[in-house]
């Protein structure tokens, strides 16, 4: 495989979120506060997992971090620099894959590489390299419709890593997959992340997924979203989520989430 033409692989950058506020106005003019003065930091190369009840503004948070949604207030800094819009330095993996069905597997991975600074051949070799990394070299010229859900998400992972971002945003990426595929892709993602050491902000509903993946877990409150609690995980990977220690943590986190969900319906 040609790795000689690779751009120099970046390492992760730190991310700093200060007093982030998002207020939506509904059609009837009602103001809905999705998040209120949300602040947290993510260290360079850290794998941060955010869990929270539905509607706590997790996806809103990720869209703001990606630069495709304007916050109402607050600031986001990447390595001390304020973000102003989307950038290939912050790429994203979506729950619904968000692959372009009119493009082949390879063309999807190349999509983000279409810049003048990279030659056509180089784009191809980078894309092929990342397809190999997710084990889909043989599917490069297939159409997206021919792939299973798990394979589609692997293409999306390749696309997200191929643009050489320092920060990866993941919006419940494995939420639509069956349990076995999900476990497999969690392992794969960890393997690739350990190789590439990007900063990751990963959103999920699944507490055991959070425990399996995270360096640190943030629990968000019901709307308006705030940080409710935080855990740092030091146990070595790959983790056994069924161990006593992890079970106990899971119970603790669920207790907190249950409270928040109850507040949503109260």
């Amino acid at each position, binding site marked *: 495989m040609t790795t000689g033409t690779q751009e120099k692989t970046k390492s992760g950058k730190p991310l700093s979120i200060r007093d982030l506020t998002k207020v939506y106005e509904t059609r009837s003019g009602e103001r809905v506060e999705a998040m209120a003065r949300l602040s947290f930091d993510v260290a360079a190369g850290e794998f941060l997992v955010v869990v929270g009840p539905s509607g706590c503004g997790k996806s809103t948070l990720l869209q703001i971090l990606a630069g495709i949604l304007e916050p109402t207030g607050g600031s986001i800094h990447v390595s001390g620099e304020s973000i102003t819009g989307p950038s290939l330095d912050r790429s*994203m993996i979506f729950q619904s894959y*968000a692959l*372009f069905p009119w493009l082949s597997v390879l063309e999807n991975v190349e999509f983000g590489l279409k810049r003048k600074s990279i030659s056509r051949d180089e784009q191809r070799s980078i894309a092929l390299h990342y397809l190999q990394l997710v084990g889909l070299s043989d599917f490069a010229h297939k159409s997206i419709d021919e792939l299973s859900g798990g394979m589609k998400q692997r293409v999306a992972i390749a696309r997200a890593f191929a643009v050489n971002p320092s920060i990866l945003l993941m919006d419940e990426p494995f939420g639509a997959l069956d349990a076995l595929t999900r476990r497999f892709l969690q392992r794969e993602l960890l393997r690739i992340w350990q190789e590439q050491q990007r900063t990751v902000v990963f959103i999920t509903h699944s507490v055991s997924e959070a425990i399996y993946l995270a360096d640190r877990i943030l629990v968000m409150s019901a709307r308006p979203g705030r940080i409710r609690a935080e855990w740092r995980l030091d146990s070595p990977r790959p983790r056994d989520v069924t161990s006593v220690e992890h079970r106990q943590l899971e119970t603790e986190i669920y207790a907190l989430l249950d409270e928040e969900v109850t507040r949503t319906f109260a």
Partner: protein
Amino acid sequence: MKALPFLAAGIVIVLVWQLLVSITKPDKAILPPPLDVARTFIHLASDGELAVHTAYSLARVFAAWLLSAAIAIPLGLLMGSSRRLDHIISPFIELFRPISPLAWIPMAILWFGIGESGKIFVVFIGTFFPILLSTVVGAKGVDPVLLHAGRIFGCTTRTALFRRVVVPAALPSIVVGLRVAFGTGWAAIIAAELVAAHSGLGYLIANGMDILRADQVLVGMITIGLLGFLFDTLFRAMQARFGRSAA
């Protein structure tokens, strides 16, 4: 597409037709038997008359259809991606759309006479709206998450997002519109030629009626049906190619 069922249906139609003729024994000027029509068909086909009329009708439809596409596709893409433009233009579209292209034929004759432009105008009316509407639907229906992905993966300008995401995402729907429009255009040209033409398949039919040649009328009808069917099949094949993500 499997050809066999269509062949079978064709044979059944001819058999029923022959049966009807054998039982009711109508005047040949009212309903000639299939064999007579086949003879006329061969006659008109071999002396080149049928080909000339067919070419006229097809050329008119293609010209108008392409003209429609050239205007309706860009306009539809713009309407589908700009809510404000959609709000301004939609009322005009919705007020004109219910007027059948056939209702425009008298005005077309008044304005353009019975030359080519009048007929192209009528077919233009008939093909414009199906292409425009399906383009608008296609552009509006682009999955927002694909737009997000487009912006995140390097489409920094609206133009880039439009070219790399909106247009290809809307393409399957546009192809559907082109196919439907060809059908409505084919119907409209025959009508226009029935009223005001000296050539074309519509004229062949109208002329057959004037000189009481039902066989000639039927030859025209059969040609119209076969060609319409042929083009629809062709477009469906195109749709299968481009329509991977069609709704």
